[in-house]
């Protein structure tokens, strides 16, 4: 894992000291709320519906056991004993007190963490594939480049007041688990015809009010030019992005209004000016960063050892969990373990302090002290030996963390919605809970198969509903909570924005509507078809008919 050098540590420590002073001045009246608000937001502190909310960055979704223990400690000491993992690989505390936040930031700094760039119109925490470094289909570990981007973008003076917030995601694998095509910039590590490594550069994706799939503006960027090319994109955006209208200020609108070709030309022109300057990192520096992400000392193991396959054969509940929650590891005899934070009827993405401690301990025992956070609000142990899986699973079960539902209908992404969020139109969590309860039968979920269901409490789309196979959006209709359903969205390399199926449903109708959609799929599917395949073959009409046919 990356470790802070003296510059990183000094920067974060100084920031804590500054914020301590700012909070003291706010409490003493030297600063008004108008003066203080931008300062607190620069440190991830929002004022939400019930209380302040602190959003902590987890760069590219990688945590050590020590860091996760510290997050648990903070939840216990300064909050209500739990926290929430978000769709941007961040973690949120829902009940911190303003006067405690300097201490919380100091506790974070002591484990090389902070809450910088989790708010405001800057380059936000860079996200990455949660299987980085262990995926079988990976060209190169994206975290090396995400760390390069982190160092470049942290408090970048030119890009601290962009027209709007700016999100970058990186994947090194062919299958996109990081939703890179719905980010302001998505990077895919690829090889060219001569086996050189570089990036496909995708710009202008995003969800929210105007959802768009990003456009590839460069098929192959040699990797040594990463930062100068990003800088060129940011400069064009910083200059031309629509500062006059908040709703048109994201780079997706600029790309859309300018046209991909002209936008690309502007970026390339800017890049030609700066590409051989001082922005790109020298190879030695990249090598230094790369060394932090060296693989653990893998043992030479045989794949699928007999003691493991015997357990699979003997214990069907274990086998179900393995079937859904374990992903193929690039090293024989190892497994990637997904820990679902979506227990039946639970709150998607929430974890108690005790659970966080338990996971941190299990990571120390079984996964080289490392944990990953996914944008789908689950956790991952990346380096588990297959022979350890049975023991690990039993431990997870004891903690209520062994739900075998990864990528199934109850593995729901849900934003905090109106239970916490000041911007919400409707609640998300209770809808997720009811759907999860309705489909609680795991056998039925397995029969339905992979189905991405995503819920947002307002058009800001933190719950990624536009790219849900089934997407649910909370709307306010004459003072009532209503839910609009979209179908056919996908977050991956075939990214697509879902289509609205018809008029919104009242809160007591939405779960039935989801069940009707699922039943329609099950009735129409052909052999081996996933929900999304059937949807692509038959379109919206049959779903519309079964949902609204009688009206």
């Amino acid at each position, binding site marked *: 894992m990356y470790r802070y050098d003296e510059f990183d540590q000094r920067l974060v420590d100084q920031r804590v000291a500054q914020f301590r002073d700012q909070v003291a001045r706010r409490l003493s009246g030297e600063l008004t709320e108008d003066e203080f608000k931008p300062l607190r937001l620069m440190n991830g502190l929002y004022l939400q519906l019930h209380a302040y909310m602190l959003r902590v960055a987890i760069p590219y979704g990688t945590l050590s056991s020590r860091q996760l223990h510290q997050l648990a400690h903070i939840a216990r000491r300064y909050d209500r004993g739990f926290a929430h993992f978000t769709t941007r690989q961040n973690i949120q505390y829902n009940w911190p007190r303003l006067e405690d936040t300097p201490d919380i930031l100091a506790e974070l700094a002591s484990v090389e963490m902070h809450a910088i760039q989790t708010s405001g119109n800057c380059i936000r925490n860079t996200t990455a594939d949660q299987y980085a470094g262990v995926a079988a289909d990976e060209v190169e570990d994206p975290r090396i480049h995400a760390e390069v981007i982190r160092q470049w973008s942290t408090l970048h003076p030119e890009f601290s007041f962009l027209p709007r917030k700016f999100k970058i995601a990186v994947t090194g694998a062919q299958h996109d688990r990081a939703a890179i095509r719905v980010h302001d910039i998505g990077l895919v590590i690829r090889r060219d015809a001569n086996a050189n490594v570089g990036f496909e550069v995708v710009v202008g994706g995003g969800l929210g009010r105007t959802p768009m799939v990003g456009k590839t503006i460069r098929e192959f960027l040699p990797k040594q030019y990463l930062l100068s090319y990003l800088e060129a994109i940011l400069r064009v955006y910083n200059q031309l992005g629509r500062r006059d209208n908040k709703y048109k200020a994201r780079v997706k609108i600029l790309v859309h209004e300018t046209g991909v070709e002209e936008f690309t030309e502007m970026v390339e022109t800017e890049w030609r000016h700066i590409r051989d300057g001082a922005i790109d990192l020298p190879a030695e520096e990249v090598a230094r960063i790369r060394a932090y992400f060296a693989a653990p000392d893998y043992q030479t193991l045989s794949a699928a050892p007999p003691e493991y396959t015997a357990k699979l054969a003997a214990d069907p509940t274990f086998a179900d969990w393995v079937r859904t929650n374990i992903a193929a590891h690039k090293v024989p005899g190892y497994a990637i373990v997904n820990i679902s934070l979506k227990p039946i009827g639970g709150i998607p993405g929430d974890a108690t302090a005790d659970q966080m401690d338990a996971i941190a301990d299990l990571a120390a025992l079984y996964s080289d002290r490392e944990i990953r956070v996914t944008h789908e609000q689950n956790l991952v142990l990346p380096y588990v030996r297959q022979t350890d899986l049975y023991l690990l699973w039993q431990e997870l*079960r004891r903690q209520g963390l062994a739900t075998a539902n990864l990528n199934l209908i109850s593995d729901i992404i849900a934003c905090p919605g109106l239970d916490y969020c000041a911007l919400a139109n409707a609640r998300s969590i209770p809808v997720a809970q009811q759907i999860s309860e309705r489909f609680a039968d795991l056998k039925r979920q397995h029969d339905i198969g992979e189905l991405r269901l995503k819920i947002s409490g307002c058009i800001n789309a933190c719950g990624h509903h536009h790219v849900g196979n089934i997407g649910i959006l909370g709307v306010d209709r004459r003072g009532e909570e209503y839910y609009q359903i979209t179908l056919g969205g996908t977050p991956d390399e075939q990214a697509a924005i879902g289509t609205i199926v018809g008029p919104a449903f009242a809160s007591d109708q939405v779960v039935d509507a989801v069940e009707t959609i699922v039943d329609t799929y099950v009735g129409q599917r052909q052999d081996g078809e996933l929900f999304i395949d059937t949807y692509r073959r038959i379109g919206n009409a049959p779903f519309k008919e079964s949902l609204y046919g009688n009206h």
Partner: protein
Amino acid sequence: MSLQVVTANRLRDGRVIYLDAADGWSTDVAAARLCEDEAAATAALAIAAAAVAARRVVEPYLIAVERADGAVSPTRYRPVRYREVIRAFGPSIAAGTAAKET
């Protein structure tokens, strides 16, 4: 006009609070000072503005409340808009409890 009360968040910890009849602030909407006309609402907002200046509260505003049917609400008055109902009584979910064993 409808009944209104003034709500805000407490500066130190961000909690939801309501202006009460004694010019103080309570976390309980049942204790809120009822404003029955425009003049009372304006006066209440002026008191809130003073509390902002005194660094006790942030972002005060008026909300509509209605007489609650005792069966529905734990208090006599409850906010009209459901956003404010959740602010007053929420979150509507049992957070922070350990997940069920599976």
